């Protein structure tokens, strides 16, 4: 397990996504109101590119027939092929949460100072101490 510095935190504002290659794999990273989540960019159903999926909310039935709620706005990722819905926070599919889930990655924000002080060295981009960075575990 290594830590991969992806980008300055400022490159991923809330509600947006960022696609990065992490250890040879395409990972799509989301910022949901300051919390960061990473999903492997390959749909576990048949392999559609999840990086291209639309984000939506969750439409669900209410207590009575005909009642609907729309929650989790922006927290559901739909596969660009078959439309499977995935919870960005957990990777679990809405249809079969126990069996079909997108691989998740731990994403955290570290300060440049932490990255310099730790045992890790940045290789390909200059990490300045003044900024925060998005770091993915993989």
């Amino acid at each position: 397990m290594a830590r991969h510095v992806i980008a300055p935190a400022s490159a991923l504002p809330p509600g947006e996504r960022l696609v990065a290659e992490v250890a040879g794999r395409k990972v799509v990273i989301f910022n949901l109101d300051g919390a960061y989540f990473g999903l492997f960019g390959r749909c576990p159903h048949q392999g559609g590119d999840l990086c291209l999926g639309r984000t939506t909310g969750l439409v669900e039935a209410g207590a009575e027939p005909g009642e609907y709620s729309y929650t989790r706005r922006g927290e559901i990722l739909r596969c660009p092929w078959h439309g499977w819905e995935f919870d960005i926070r957990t990777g679990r599919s809405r249809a079969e949460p126990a069996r079909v889930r997108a691989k998740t990655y731990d994403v955290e924000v570290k300060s440049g100072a932490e990255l310099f002080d730790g045992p890790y060295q940045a290789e390909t981009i200059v990490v300045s101490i003044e900024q925060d960075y998005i770091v993915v575990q993989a």
Partner: protein
Amino acid sequence: MNMELPARPKPGSAIVRPTIADCDIHPCLAKPSDILPYLPKRWQDHAMTYGMLPRHGYQSGPAYPKGQPDAARLDSWPPDGRPGSDLSFMQAQHLDANQVELGIMTVIAPAAGAAQNLDYSAALARALNEWQVAEWASKDSRLKASIVIPYEDGAAAAAEIDHWAGHDAFVQVLLLSRTAEPLGQRRYWPIYEAAQRARLPVGVHAFGYGGYPVTAGGWPSYYIEEMVGHSQCCQALLTSMVIEGVFERYPGTRMVLIEAGLAWLPSLSWRLDKHWSRMRDETPHLRRPPSEYIRDHVWLTTQPMEEPEKRKHFHDIVEWIGIDRLLFATDYPHWDFDDPLWAVPVKLDEAARQALFLDNAKALYGRA
């Protein structure tokens, strides 16, 4: 902007994709006017002035909205035009990437065969066939075409088949599943006669414009009901073809049901046989149980494939139908595309895999 801190894990190993035949690929016009150069001037003027009225009341588009824009994979839009309209994009994204050795093109839009003006139906069918040769089959030898026909006019449809018979680009005759009458009825017999004469299979692709509700129970509320309605529609048309005696009269007929599911076929066969054994004398022109005609004359494309809750049940379905009657298809570029590497829900033995993914299609379409 990707920077890795110390250990660089090795990338996932490369996936090896076997060679396949794809029996349902949808090329389409980048824009409607792209067909004009292939139409005679008289029909160019008609197309621009009146357009096409499908057999479908009071609306111009398909009956139900689709699962994704233009019913296509979100990643299948070429830089210009609609999904399926750019050969080089299709080559890179699908034919090359998925190792397609034989790709059967099924042009379903515009649905020329469903045009209410039968003369325009015939003209547009001819134009789409010319277009398939000029823009697709002649540019990529992996792609083979299906003859689009004005299927509501049996004589004109047969003439279109005769026109292309023996042409190397064409390997199939193509109809859509929703027609004015059940497909076994006599108005359609000239099609089967001509296809038999040309030694071409008759493909019936789901969808179309019959003018009737898309389910046997009326107009449903949701797109998902249309999707599963295709199996009803194809059960009805296949039943008609069997019971009307099409396979008895034209024994060279080879039917390919495209994009209509497959697990329903055994149940239909069993049910037909049960009733036939009691009512045989109603249709004495049938010399054999209905299931035997189906077994001898019908192929099915796989996409969108059933995914049984217990995966092993897929083996039962294959056994009931016969592995030699299944043809792999992706439906590229449509949104319910089946990826050849992941779509089959069970692991098939090598002989079965080879049959389903390649050999059955090559044999059926004369490319073995």
